[in-house]
């Protein structure tokens, strides 16, 4: 579930307000968006992928809040970690060699 928006990182672009498919955020004029409908979050992580400032954190628990803090997330380098994993951060991501990827093709 969406846990927090970092006021330090957020630039107020409101992309998350538009991109969230379940309309969790509300824009606030002159400020960062607010998490207005936390219980509607479906834990799809799309806000993290679309956020250009790596300012949001979605905890993997879809059923309850964890109460993780911004300081904990910064120290664990979790902000932006999913955007990097899918290759949307600057520099993209490096694909392992084809012979390694082909290991998944063997029938199981």
């Amino acid at each position, binding site marked *: 579930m969406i846990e927090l928006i970092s006021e330090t990182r957020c630039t107020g672009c409101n992309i998350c307000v538009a991109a969230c498919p379940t309309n969790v955020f509300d824009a606030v004029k002159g400020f960062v968006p607010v998490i207005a409908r936390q219980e509607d979050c479906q*834990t799809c992580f799309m806000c993290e992928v679309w956020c250009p400032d790596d300012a949001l954190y979605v905890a993997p628990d879809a059923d309850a809040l964890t109460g993780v803090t911004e300081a904990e997330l910064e120290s664990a380098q979790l902000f932006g970690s999913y955007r990097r994993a899918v290759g949307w951060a600057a520099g993209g991501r490096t694909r392992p060699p084809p012979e390694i990827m082909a290991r998944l093709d063997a029938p199981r």
Partner: protein
Amino acid sequence: MAKPTPAAPTASIEHDADVLVIGGGPAGTWAALTAAYRGARVVLVDKGFCGTSGATAPSGTGVWYVPPDPARRARAMNSRWDLGGRLADPAWMRRVLDRTYANVNTLSEWGHPFPNGADGAQIRTSLDGPDYMRLMRKRTKAAGVRILDHSPALELLRDASGAVAGAAGIRRQAGDTWLVRANAVVIATGGCAFLSKALGCNVLTGDGYLMAGELGAEFSGMEFSSAYAMALEHGSVTKTRFYDWAEFTYADGSPIPGAASKAGRSVIARTLGSGKAVYSRLIADPEEQVAMRHAQPNFFLPLDRVGIDPFTDRFPVTLRLEATVRGTGGLRIVDDGCATTVPGLYAAGDAATRELVCGAFTGGGSHNAAWAMSSGFWAGSSAGEHARSLRGRAGRAVFRAGGAGVAEGSAARIDPQALARRVRDEVHPFEHTYHRHADRLNASLERLDGLWAGLRDADSAAFGDAQRTREGVAMLATARWMYRSSLARTESRGMHRREDYPGRDEAQRHHVIAGGLDEVWTSTAPAHSPGEEVLAA
């Protein structure tokens, strides 16, 4: 049913279009694009955001991309034939393979980042969800389609003949209403996962089924709706492929006999249903682990964030209901252009029946992705042609077609939270949806029918509750079509498992058709061509 409002409906913003597409996932965007390329004026509405909404965008998916080599195509079709309970239609399988091949090649031309294989050629058998849907949004806008985001449709419009004439809904962020008059409408609203929080699926509440059902559309295969997908306990990432590498154990570490992701998931359901925890661990060598992490980063996302190494730690898993999203039931298709039984109304993607290509079983993924882009293409194409052929016709009177929760009624308004909870209480338990029995289906239906009787005269919802109210009504209607269809199939076939009829009955190699709102009915329709045709493909 409440009577349609006689006066011409109005809204804060109104558009006239040839084609209205409801739903902005893969099926909807392919439909909108194709209609626009045929010269149609197209509006696409999405209840969320076209580009992130639905099961595909957060997920990534394999795609049934098979080069046109007769031997490979025959193998691809045969591999699904028995799995699907011999209910697929070989002619449709062939045309889906053809269409998917062409569409995926188009995606490559558009710049989708397919990786290269060892021979330097692109590997086009899977699609990264975020990239795919961002690209589809971009192409849809560039084609001149008007996209309305955060604009849930609440009801269809119809003309005096009963043909569809557009739709109406709300713009939840603008706080006003929209109305689109159109000569053709494509339902691309996805399946119904009953708010289970399966990945990306909470927007998939059967809205399109309800709206089409209110115009008299028919359904096919709604008994094939018993899909559950595995996830880390309390997690949402219902990516099941890597559980092919898994061992499953009880809390004490002892193996669970017969438990497996494929052909053993019902053992896992029974274990969880009996209140026991199920633990998983993936057995893979270091190279496989590297490949897995790259192939599906979202599989590892929740595990990494809670500090679980799935290759060394045992971690608890759960099953989340995906119902018709990974099932195959949906709106009945009556021609090659994905027309429904309602004039002017088309269906694509998970909103439509996928029995034509998958029969009675799909694990989701590649076949659903192939079906979405193929059926979207055909629905958009035929909707565009149909609508353009009606251009210049004198203005027709249009009426609102929505019933419970959107039409005015004499009874109290619906409590959307309570309604959703009661429907979920019926459909989420494994013993209702996964393992079926006439006694439990009948008891469930009695409660669901009672719920329906209690809300059919409800007054229209207040603006702030309109979407949730209609979602609840849609889930209720969907559950009733699912369970009536499940009762009608007195055998086990594909994903449909009846404890009271565990065997397959060859006399029931037919489709179960369903429809109706106040009175839900079922009938049967013959299955398509015989199996020999597949073997000769």
